[in-house]
């Protein structure tokens, strides 16, 4: 039996889909069999982030409604032998699927795959409930902003009330220089407020934009900071103990000068 992990956040735009794509690809690169499930029905995006948008024939709703067999809807990623995608339906809405159906789907997928990674839609309504229904564990993505942290807190509460305990946290889009200046909440600040365990941090990185433009997950082939950060998270998800990455902030000459002067 494989493991079902849901990637969620509450707030939109914090990097759920990017995280799903990169974790999934990263785990597949470790030789595990992985399926990515886009649970954002009506607003599918994992397909374009993965660069697989041209290969969709059937989708998740086709599977739950019995229009096709599960295997027919799975898209195999030709670049990574063990990676598959189950795309969301684009022309339906979130009520086309029920939590029970999602639970069954996750169960079926977990029999075939080592990891089932679900990209949860933003919000806390039906789509969220569907996405978490079949999950064994949850990873919450947030950014160092008041709104994203607040929503993460709400999600933690909702997961708890659904019996999904001990979610793990990813803090995305950290800007080390701003943190250093005291103008951005630090990892410790956020952990203290949310009181959950951290599974990784990702620095703000232009390479994410570039790799998304190309439809190639950053984790696969780059020395960019974000790629390394994702690779670290992949190893932690798989049970390894990896120390948090540290950011070197290139201090300005003026900054050093100030230090020398004792300010």
């Amino acid at each position, binding site marked *: 039996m494989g493991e079902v992990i849901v990637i969620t956040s509450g707030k939109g735009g914090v990097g759920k889909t990017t995280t799903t794509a990169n974790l999934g690809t990263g785990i597949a690169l470790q030789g595990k069999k992985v399926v990515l499930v886009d649970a954002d029905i009506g607003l599918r995006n994992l397909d374009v982030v993965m660069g697989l948008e041209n290969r969709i024939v059937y989708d998740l709703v086709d599977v739950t409604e019995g229009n096709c067999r599960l295997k027919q809807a799975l898209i195999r990623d030709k670049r990574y032998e063990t990676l598959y995608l189950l795309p969301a339906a684009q022309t339906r809405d979130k009520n086309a699927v029920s939590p029970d159906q999602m639970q069954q789907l996750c169960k079926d997928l977990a029999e075939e795959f080592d990891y089932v990674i679900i990209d949860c839609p933003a919000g806390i309504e039906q789509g969220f409930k569907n996405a978490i229904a079949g999950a064994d564990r949850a990873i919450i993505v947030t950014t160092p*902003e*008041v709104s994203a*942290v*607040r929503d993460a*807190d*709400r999600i933690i*509460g909702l997961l708890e*009330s659904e019996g999904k305990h001990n979610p793990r946290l990813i803090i995305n889009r950290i800007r080390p220089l701003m*943190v250093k*200046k*005291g*103008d*951005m*909440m*630090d990892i410790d*600040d956020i952990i203290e*407020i949310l009181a959950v365990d951290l599974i990784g941090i990702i620095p703000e990185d232009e390479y994410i934009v570039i790799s998304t433009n190309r439809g190639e997950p950053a984790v696969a082939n780059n020395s960019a900071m974000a790629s390394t950060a994702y690779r670290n998270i992949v190893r932690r998800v798989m049970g390894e103990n990896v120390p948090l990455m540290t950011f070197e902030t290139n201090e300005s000459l003026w900054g050093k000068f*100030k230090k020398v002067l004792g*300010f």
Partner: protein
Amino acid sequence: MFELIQKLFGKEAQGSKNIAKERLRFVLVHDRVNVSPQYMEAIKDDMIKVISNYMDINENEMEVNLTRSNTQVALVANIPVNRMKRTNLPSE
């Protein structure tokens, strides 16, 4: 002028993150208040246990609520007392 000098040397910058943290902490107290009635029941039950060591109270009429104003959240308990238990006063 002094401020300007401070600014120049970056001393004023306690950083906006502290404002963010403070605001978040407060807003989360508000948010979490709504989370579960069971939570309030648990608080109530524990309060009854403690207070009953000292007095007989009317548990049915007891009210425990979180109230909020613009500046703070308070736990307000209204507990009708039937009788004091003189014998159980803590002796030191």
